[in-house]
């Protein structure tokens, strides 16, 4: 089985988000980047397939040279080969389009994306890839097994879960649950050493078409002060929620 894990580099979850003074872009100053958490679950599952069933695991990231440390980390975790598609990921369509081009030349059986990236929260890359490449698609995937050409997956739905079956080639949108959090792979020394010499290829995309444009960014209004209620006066809280906030 040949697997591609699509990895996006996102601000660490503790980051405070700021925008540039002209409000035209995200201010990356002082921000630490990490592998998108949903992609981390997918990567660990891919490495599991490699170790348990035999698979070749590639990763791909659409981004400029600054994303390479994240890619090396993914190699250290266990991927065999990396591809950086050299352009700024302006929108989900551009990302999916350039990844699809790569997927078509490498003929993957399984493409693992995250359900969403926690930066621009696009929710669209895996679905777009599935359509561009004519692969089956399972989103919000919380378990995945592959037996020959047959894939069985569970998917989280609002208030429950579903079990689905399909044939490879397949794209999944991974999320928490796909592997146990305690099983998430952390790079060890040997992994880090070997990652240095693993291949990282740079690809120049042939099309930079986008379907949307972010014109500007804003931060949420800072919140007004909290109303504190004394613990001896719980009736007042109910009164406030009923009369002032009108939520009861």
């Amino acid at each position, binding site marked *: 089985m040949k697997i591609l894990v699509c990895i996006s580099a996102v601000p660490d*979850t*503790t980051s405070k*988000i700021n*925008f540039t003074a002209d409000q035209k872009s*995200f201010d990356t100053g002082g921000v630490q980047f990490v592998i998108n958490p949903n992609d981390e679950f997918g990567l660990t599952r891919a490495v599991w397939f490699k170790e348990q069933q035999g698979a070749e695991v590639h990763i791909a990231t659409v981004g400029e040279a600054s994303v390479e440390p994240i890619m090396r980390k993914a190699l250290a975790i266990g991927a065999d080969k990396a591809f950086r598609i050299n352009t700024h990921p302006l929108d*989900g*369509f551009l990302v999916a389009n350039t990844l699809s081009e790569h997927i078509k030349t490498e003929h993957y059986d399984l493409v693992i994306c995250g359900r969403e990236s*926690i*930066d*621009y*929260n*696009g*929710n*669209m*890359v*895996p*679905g*777009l890839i*599935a*359509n561009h490449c004519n692969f*089956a698609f*399972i989103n*919000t995937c919380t378990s995945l097994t592959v037996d020959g050409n047959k894939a*069985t997956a569970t998917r*989280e*739905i*609002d*208030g*429950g*879960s*579903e*079990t*689905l*079956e399909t044939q490879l080639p397949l794209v999944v949108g991974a999320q*928490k649950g796909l592997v146990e*959090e305690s099983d998430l792979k952390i790079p060890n020394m040997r992994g880090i050493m070997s990652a240095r010499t693993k291949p990282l290829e740079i690809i120049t995309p042939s099309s930079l078409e*986008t*379907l*949307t*444009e*972010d*014109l*500007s*960014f*804003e*931060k*949420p209004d800072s*919140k007004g002060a*909290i*109303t*504190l*209620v004394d613990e001896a006066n719980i009736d007042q*809280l*109910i009164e*406030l*929620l*009923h009369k002032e*906030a009108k*939520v*009861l």
Partner: protein
Amino acid sequence: MSVLVYLESENKAYKKTANELASYAAELANQLNTEAIGLVINNDQPEIIGGLNQIISVNNEALDTYTAEKFASLISVAFEKSGAQYLVIGSSADSKYLGGLISAKSSSGYIPNVIALPENIDGKTAFKRTVFTNKGYALTTPKTKRCIIGLSKNSFGSVRSDSGSRVESMILDVIDDPVSLISKSTVNGKATIADADIVVSAGRGLKGPENWHLIEELADVLGAATACSKPVSDLGWRPHSEHVGQTGKPVATNLYIAIGISGAIQHLAGINASKIKVVINNDPEAPFFKAADYGIVGDAFTIVPQLIEKLKAFKAENA
């Protein structure tokens, strides 16, 4: 150049979110001086809601079970046939699954997590959407003639309720989906985090799973769904499906009550979209007090039982 809105059905009736989606579509159409059309699939009573001008109703047994490819193909064809400029969809797990697929099939841009009607920026139509898991907003404009708007739940409100217009059936082909549904399990009768108007959530301050009866009782009185912080689900005190936050489920309810949760940035990011936040925590320095609208400093184990009793009395009085 109308506005088409896909309104999800559940057990052959509208889902609760339909009214807000229809209201948004109607207001958007109003702004553009055009008509708003609802698209419903296998709904037994597709009456007009939220100020729509027309409903297109599709009925086909093959659509009784939801699979994404099948639904996305059908909705894309309806989008095409209707000649609409915008397609509005919701933010349920099923609808988010459709977004990218319909975008590809209809060659139209998809703008997810939208929270408001468009504004004009230098002659461009810009939709405000949340990015960085509620830590910021982007104003995004479509570059395609047609565009898909994914509306965030509880961001707009069910502002329109007038009704009275045409319902037309449409017959559309249903494709075979390469993905087939084997089984489905849902928690019946309990409010879910995705649908509930109120969510009662608790953190490590509750000390252990044996104390969760307090949270469940409080949720029962309020008709609320229960949720928890990440460490609580990591410790196995509660199921993973209750984990909310930046890396868990997003919460956008009318009322979010956080009990014994410190208010870490990753937690707040995922629940910030809720309208009213209440915190109960015995540490006045807990960061949640900076993010909430109402708060009580004190011990959850003395406050929550009283709150349950008083709410019961309140409910009885206001029933």
